[in-house]
């Protein structure tokens, strides 16, 4: 069953590549959507055999592969990876559906999208370090292509930056794993704390720090976030959705699975530093977001801030905090995907994302009222307003962390307050006031009467509405998610490294 989760997107991607290029782009999108819907169905169906009361990896599928180097084909799923599998399936589908401009090489575009989704599934399911690395690397190049080929004007710079940073990230992770194998003398790359059992503390620390930097680039944490805002601003909307909603989660997933999971002995040693790092990331992301006038850059910096909560939770490693980390990964995935979708809609209709230019989009007849309404919902969710996904996630993270790291937690909460500042600036500037899409400095043009934006067709809003509903759904019925993850996070917290 888990293998099928890899096969569906990979076969889909291959099938698309083999389609004759004469096939209409819309058809190609339909093919991609069919495969992605299948993937989503299968991911949801995974809930049936999945036993939520078991915290350890389950539904294991094992085939010896290149056992000589410790590379085995070993897949498993647990409460940590299952929500991310679901998010991946859902958001890739959303990405495909919301792809509008598909005139340019649709075949490759959609096959890359499917390839990424399959690779991400592989990384989340891999129960073998090397297998994880392979999938982790596998997702990298297609994404780079998606930015470099289908991106904005400055895509060359942004995609190169992305590639270099994430390649380094992959390299560091690989190096840490190899180093681990080298020093432990094991040929076993299965994920077990036993790997680090007899290593000297200093060695463990070196390996852990290497790993942390590797994943820190991907998450991204300050100061390794430099690639993210550029990548987002140059990437097209669907790619941003994938990047923010799914791919950043690889970093936090790795942090929890391999950082906390493998290095339990030294984890408490680095945890206080991680908490400080988290608080810095949160505040840095929030403050930088305030200063942005490009809506997409603002959302990108908010990601930097919000992923910091996951690091905070990982540092505290209490059952509540770790559950909060899972919640935060899921809710950040859904919320940031929603926000990027909406910013994308604004950009497509107005031709700009500049907050000094756009005004009054709530105008019911000529503006984008539904987009505005969903945007208000999205930013409120992101700012942690109760009843939506962001609140319960942040609450769990903060509540789980405050006793271990009171100061870092309080600072992170300040960051959560700052989220409201920049997102309110965004909403009030772009959506309130009189409708205008011309620079404010040119008052004559700014007050134009004949502002004519294309309407958003009801069909175009379906993905955003679906995401908004799930944001509210998770916020009101969080137990649906906690039921999946509670055992796994509890188990993780009870390991020696955890505080449970």
């Amino acid at each position, binding site marked *: 069953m888990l293998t099928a989760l890899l096969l569906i997107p990979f076969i889909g991607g291959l099938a698309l590549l083999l389609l004759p290029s004469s096939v209409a782009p819309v058809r190609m999108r339909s093919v991609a959507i069919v495969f992605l819907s299948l993937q989503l169905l299968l991911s949801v169906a995974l809930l049936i055999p999945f036993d939520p009361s078991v915290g350890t990896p389950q539904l294991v599928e094992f085939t010896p592969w290149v056992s000589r180097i410790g590379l085995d084909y070993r897949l498993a799923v647990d409460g940590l990876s299952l929500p991310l599998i679901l998010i991946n399936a859902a958001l890739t589908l959303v990405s495909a559906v919301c792809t509008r401009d598909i005139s340019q090489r649709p075949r490759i575009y959609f096959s890359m999208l499917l390839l990424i989704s399959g690779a991400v599934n592989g990384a989340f399911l891999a129960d073998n370090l090397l297998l994880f690395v392979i999938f982790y690397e596998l997702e990298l190049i297609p994404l780079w292509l998606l930015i470099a080929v289908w991106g904005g004007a400055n895509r060359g710079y942004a995609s190169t930056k992305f590639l270099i940073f994430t390649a380094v990230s992959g390299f560091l992770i690989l190096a840490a794993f190899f180093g681990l194998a080298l020093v432990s003398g094991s040929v076993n790359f299965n994920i077990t704390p036993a790997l680090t059992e007899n290593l000297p503390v200093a060695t463990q620390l070196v390996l852990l720090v290497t790993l942390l930097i590797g994943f820190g680039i991907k998450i991204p944490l300050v100061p390794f976030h430099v690639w993210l805002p550029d990548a987002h601003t140059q990437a097209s909307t669907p790619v941003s959705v994938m990047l923010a909603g799914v791919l950043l989660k690889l970093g936090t997933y790795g942090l929890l699975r391999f950082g906390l999971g493998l290095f339990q002995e030294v984890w408490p040693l680095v945890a206080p530093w991680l908490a400080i790092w988290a608080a810095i990331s949160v505040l840095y992301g929030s403050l*930088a977001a305030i200063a942005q006038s490009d809506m997409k850059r603002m959302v990108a910096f908010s990601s930097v801030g919000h992923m910091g909560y996951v690091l905070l939770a990982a540092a505290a490693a209490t059952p509540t905090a770790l559950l909060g980390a899972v919640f935060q990964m899921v809710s950040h995935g859904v919320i940031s995907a929603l926000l990027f979708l909406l910013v994308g809609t604004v950009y497509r209709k107005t031709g700009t994302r500049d907050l000094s230019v756009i005004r009054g989009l709530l105008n019911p007849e000529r503006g984008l009222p539904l987009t505005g309404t969903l945007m208000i919902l999205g930013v409120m969710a992101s700012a942690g307003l109760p009843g939506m996904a962001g609140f319960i996630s942040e609450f769990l993270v903060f509540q789980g962390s405050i006793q271990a790291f009171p100061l870092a*937690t309080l600072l992170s909460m300040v960051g959560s307050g700052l989220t409201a500042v920049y997102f309110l600036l965004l909403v*009030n500037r772009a959506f309130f006031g009189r409708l205008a899409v011309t620079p404010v400095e040119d008052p004559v043009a700014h007050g134009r009467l004949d502002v004519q934006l294309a309407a958003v067709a009801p069909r175009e809003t379906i993905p955003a509405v679906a995401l908004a509903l799930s944001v509210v759904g998770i916020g009101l019925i969080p137990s649906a998610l906690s039921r999946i993850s509670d055992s796994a996070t509890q188990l993780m917290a009870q390991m020696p490294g955890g505080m449970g």
Partner: protein
Amino acid sequence: MNAHLPLSIQLSWLIPLYGFSGVLLSLPWATGWVKRNGPRPAAYLNLLMTVLGVAHGSLILAWVQQNGGVVIEWPWFETSGLDLRIGFDLSLTNLAALEFVTIMSLLGQVFALGYLDKEWSLARFYALLGFFEGAMAGVVLSSNLFLSYFVLEMLTLSTYLLVGFWYAQPLVVTAARDAFLTKRVGDVLLLMSVVALAAWAGSLDFEDLYAWAAQVKADGSISPLLGTLIGLGLIAGPMGKCAQFPMHLWLDEAMEGPNPASILRNSAVVTCGALVLLKVMPLLQLSPVAIDVLLIIGTISAIGGALVAIAQVDIKRAFSYGTTSYLGLVFVAIAVQQPIVAVLLLFAHGLAKALIFMSVGSVIATTNCQDITELGGLGPRMPATTGSYLIAGAGLTGVLPLGCFWCFGLLVDGLWANYPWLVPVVLLTNALTAFNLVRVFRQVFLDKPHPKTKRTPEVNWLMALPMVSLAVVVLLVPLIFHRIYPIAGVEVVSLFSMVAVVVSSLVGVVIASGIALDKFGSRSVFKPLRTLQDLLAYDFYTERFYRSTVVAFVAFLARITDAFDRLLLNRFVNRVGTSSMVSAEGLRLAVSGQTQSYVLTVLLAIVLLLSALVWWRAA
């Protein structure tokens, strides 16, 4: 679930849902799905849900009066480390507050049908009112701090949306933002305390927290610093909600919103905030500092608010600052451990203030004007509006034995023994309020008709009816008090207090009757007086103060961070990038269109990597 409880109580979870369901019911009109027909059915449906809410609340209230209060809970979110529940404390006070909130919402909604009769976005307005009402019902009934926080924050959101209702109006844009952010500051501080309490006390149930606080106080198991911080956080939330100094600015700006929402905001919402404070009150024993802060803030707000109010020329703002002032007195009452007086004052103030805002709404609807210097002579022509204003004024001050008279009497009595220095605060607030009411009354209702008030027919029945009904309720407040709390009556308030309250009111009335009325845009020629006038009219320049401190500080940090990010970090990365051996030129091939070859390259790279691995392991 307790099966022996009557159905009305078992179904009490419905109570906030009556309001919230209004949101869903309004959607077809609010979103424009219904294009040919007008939005009024949404309003009627909301009214219907509110009536159901009032009826359900009354049923429960009647049962609880007979059988005593119950706490009723439903599980919401249970994990290995946490158990969050939805719990309602169906006590007499809470249910009285619920009735207050729902009836206020009902009256406000009927009033809005008249006030907003030419409003095309009516459905959205009623959806927001429904949300507002649901959140308020949740706040007053909540039996645990988590739920209280949850719904308080929803209240913040609905305030933002209601103030932002006329989103295209330029001042609304900033007003909505400031209202949200100010309240949010309080909320985040409150959240810090909630999170801390959840971690240290292990439960967020009010009863458990009270027991925990008592135990901690006895054994000193948490540090005084932590206790103080928790206490300060707990009062920060209600401070923001109740528009207390220094977080009062938003209420002024929130007056940009529609008047029916202002009615609710100045009566019901602030009451909700204060009720939360009452509920966390027993926890403040952790921290004497927090209680002192409460007392100081209450005092400053009471007098500061009343002073600022008398310098306002905007008719809505003249009374919204009074809200800050009265809630300041409520804070004082809570700080000096007089919860019953606090509750009575909340009700007396809430009803009278709602009435005065209805009257003000009538004036604005008739004259298209909020500037009291441009108004005048409405008295002989608008009986319902004038009568309501007078009754509300009497209910707010201690001049006639209506609601606030008894509250002030009780408060003075309560303060006399331990806090005699606070008695003048109460009396001064009362006198200033009386002054303000008479000043506005003379200017708006007496005086000669001005151009904008030459033709002022009384408002339509949809506004007049709720106004007159509420006026009757305000007149009956002493009776209601007597039924709920038999202690409030002539027999308990000392003669001295009664005399003090009446005299202080009369002083205000007499002075206000004597002063010269403002002409449009007029200011005193006497410079010190003018300076004082401006200081008060511009609210002690609070807005300017914030802009040059907090706002400037955050903006500065944001700019610094951004500059660091762009100028240092990115530049450094670019420098390293260009000098590194990874040539951007080579990678730019992708753009040139040979993507297929790139996929091959990638696959090749992975194969190579794996081969290297095999080779390395083998070696």
